[in-house]
């Protein structure tokens, strides 16, 4: 395991920050302008803009202009690497548990005394 550099240049670092996770949660329900995000989080607009900038840099959030407003939306495809991590982690536990099944089958047989 290699320690990650302390940058915000990848999606994982970007989502490590709790407020940015909260922004993604809000956007998961639908696109929103920055003032609605600020209201939803109970923080100031400059703070939200700062986090949105990071999220846009790593492609987690996209923006479109709608008249004078800028509307933000989640780009769920960029969360795929995180899903891949979970899938790989799940696979390594599945392999462990497959072996544990074998151990348990033997213990069960021993206990039942049928020596299968």
């Amino acid at each position, binding site marked *: *395991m*290699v*320690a*990650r550099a302390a940058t915000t240049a990848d999606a*994982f*670092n970007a*989502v*490590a*920050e*709790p407020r940015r*996770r909260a922004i993604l949660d809000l956007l998961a329900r639908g696109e929103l302008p920055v003032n609605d995000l600020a209201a939803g989080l109970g923080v100031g607009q400059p703070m939200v803009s700062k986090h949105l900038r990071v999220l846009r840099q790593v492609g987690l959030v996209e923006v479109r202009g709608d008249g004078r407003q800028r509307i933000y939306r989640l780009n769920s495809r960029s969360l795929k690497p*995180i899903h*891949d*991590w*979970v899938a*790989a*982690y*799940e*696979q*390594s*536990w*599945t*392999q*462990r*548990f*497959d*072996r*544990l*099944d*074998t*151990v*348990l*089958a033997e*213990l*069960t047989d021993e*206990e039942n005394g049928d020596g299968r």
Partner: protein
Amino acid sequence: MTGIGTAEVTLPSSTQILITREFDAPRHLVYRAWTTPELIKRWWGGDRGEVTSVEVDLRVGGGWRYAMTAHAGFEVAFHGQYLELVDGERIVSTEVFEPMPDHPAVSTLVLTGTGQRTTITLLVEHTSAADRDMHLRSGMEGGMQESLDHLEQVARSLT
């Protein structure tokens, strides 16, 4: 003897990992397989390597340490301390990945079920979202390493 299913991994919060799996064995045997060194050696490495050492001091305040040599050649070791032990039901312990001693997690194993069926839930709680993500990513890197190893074996067999 075949598995009842794949391990199910979910992320209940930004600092947690929850692993769930059902087994075709009574609770006391799952507990025994989880706490007996010679049995842990047989399953804990999964397909990733050979478990080289398992130490278990099964009492509250007692320590544990598992080490393995991954097929890729590197050593991987974890250790921790038991915080809570309920025979056949529950194990709470700290968990430290040895290269990163300042990032301990707390894991809670709960066994439920009656008769021949046991469901386990293993909740791993980190102190920060970044630690949790690092833990998750270790599975990815291990998995990729395995894939590369397999690829190498295939490549060798072709020459």
